[in-house]
């Protein structure tokens, strides 16, 4: 419906990401890690991902889009365990940050210098904590995407650009995102803020919320729908506090605009333009 408008608006974002991706000089000796992890840990560099493991308990409150097939409520609270950690060996790394919205990430640090770092990586839905409101219906199938992640410092901010492509063949969809964030230390409290924009290809959107002609013919209350590509915006504010050498407290609030490509789907039960989430956790760091 509003996809023409979206097509126009996403072009500048993609161009910016492409230009920065293509023009950044690289060398090698540091590693990037997830922007949210860098900001939460108040690291000095995009390279400051250390080998560690932590296990925590998280409570999430979500208010998001619901789908007819999911039987889920738009707003709910849940509590569960999560695992965060990373391990690096000879430029190869494996990491899992529950706050990142990804699951397990396996990658290779391809280029780096003091300010910029590029990782090539594969992400899966394993160990994923689904607090990230992406507005999409979560299928039962495992996710596996490959792509790149460019992280760097621009002034007092950390920026991160990433592109991921599905390799399972389920939808062959593509996502691209640009995030910028910074942190502040107020005594031993570490605050951070992130704003971002994400492009999602039509193939991926259609896989999640599209309705094929066959499905529409099979179900009375579903019209055929082909989802287009979309752009959504997100913002996040959070705080991390070291309770002791081994225990960490975190709290994070997040909001994400839901694109028309998602909300216009006949699969949608509620039509929210913004999804919000809040999660708080306490974790033990080994």
């Amino acid at each position, binding site marked *: 419906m509003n996809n023409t408008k979206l097509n126009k608006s996403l072009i500048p974002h993609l161009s910016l990401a492409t230009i920065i991706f293509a023009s950044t000089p690289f060398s090698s000796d540091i590693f990037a890690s997830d922007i949210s992890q860098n900001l939460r840990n108040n690291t000095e560099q995009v390279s*400051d991902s250390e080998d560690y493991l932590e296990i925590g308990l998280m409570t999430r409150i979500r208010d998001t889009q619901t789908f007819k097939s999911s039987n889920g409520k738009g707003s709910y609270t849940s509590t569960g365990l999560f695992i965060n950690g990373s391990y690096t060996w000879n430029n190869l790394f494996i990491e899992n940050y529950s706050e990142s919205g990804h699951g397990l990430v396996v990658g290779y640090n391809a280029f780096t210098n003091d300010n910029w770092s590029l990782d090539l990586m594969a992400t899966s839905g394993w160990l994923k904590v689904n607090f990230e409101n992406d507005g999409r219906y979560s299928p039962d199938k495992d996710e596996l995407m490959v792509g790149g992640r460019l992280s760097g410092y621009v002034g007092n901010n950390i920026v991160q650009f990433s592109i991921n492509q599905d390799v399972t063949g389920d939808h062959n969809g593509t996502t691209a995102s640009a995030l910028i964030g910074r942190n502040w230390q107020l005594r031993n409290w570490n605050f951070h803020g992130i704003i971002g924009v994400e492009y999602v290809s039509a193939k991926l959107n259609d896989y999640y919320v599209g309705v094929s002609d066959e499905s529409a013919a099979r179900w009375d209350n579903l019209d055929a729908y082909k989802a287009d590509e979309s752009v959504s915006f997100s913002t996040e504010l959070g705080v991390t506090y*070291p309770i002791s050498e081994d225990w960490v407290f975190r709290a994070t609030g997040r909001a994400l605009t839901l694109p028309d490509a998602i909300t216009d789907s006949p699969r949608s039960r509620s039509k929210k333009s913004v999804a919000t989430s809040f999660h708080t956790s306490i974790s033990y760091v080994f």
Partner: protein
Amino acid sequence: MYFKGNIKMTLLKYTNKAQVNANKAFNLYTVIFLLIGYCLISVSANAETTQGITSLSNTEQLTQLKVTPKPCVALRKGQKCYLEVTFSWQHPEISNYCLVNSTTNKTIKCWRQQTKGQYSFDFQSRLSNDFALRKQESSVDIARTTIPVAWVYKSSKRAKSTWRLF
């Protein structure tokens, strides 16, 4: 006890052999003499050490410098750590005392003609700091304590550049 037992066994062994061989008996007596001499010297030395410790312990019991709470915990190594701490001290003699940060060699607070004192301040540091109680105009530490700075996330294994984010 184990050592003493071994000596006793060795002694019996050598005594039996001494009845058979006079030369060996001579060696035995020499060994016994040396052992007794060694034991006497050891006991004497231990007694002196014990006396020294006792003497030091008595002084330490009467002189105290404490700081609460501790440690100061920051999220990441290298980050400045903040902690409201309270020092309390006591000493048997009335005199002028000073609380000194011996890491930075700065005097924090002094008391005149007191035997005890208390002081609270806002500790801010990236590293552990040592503190001492000293008599005014003296550089001798009467009592010492430390505020350790600890971190949840330790340093990166990779080289860091000199610039900082914030």
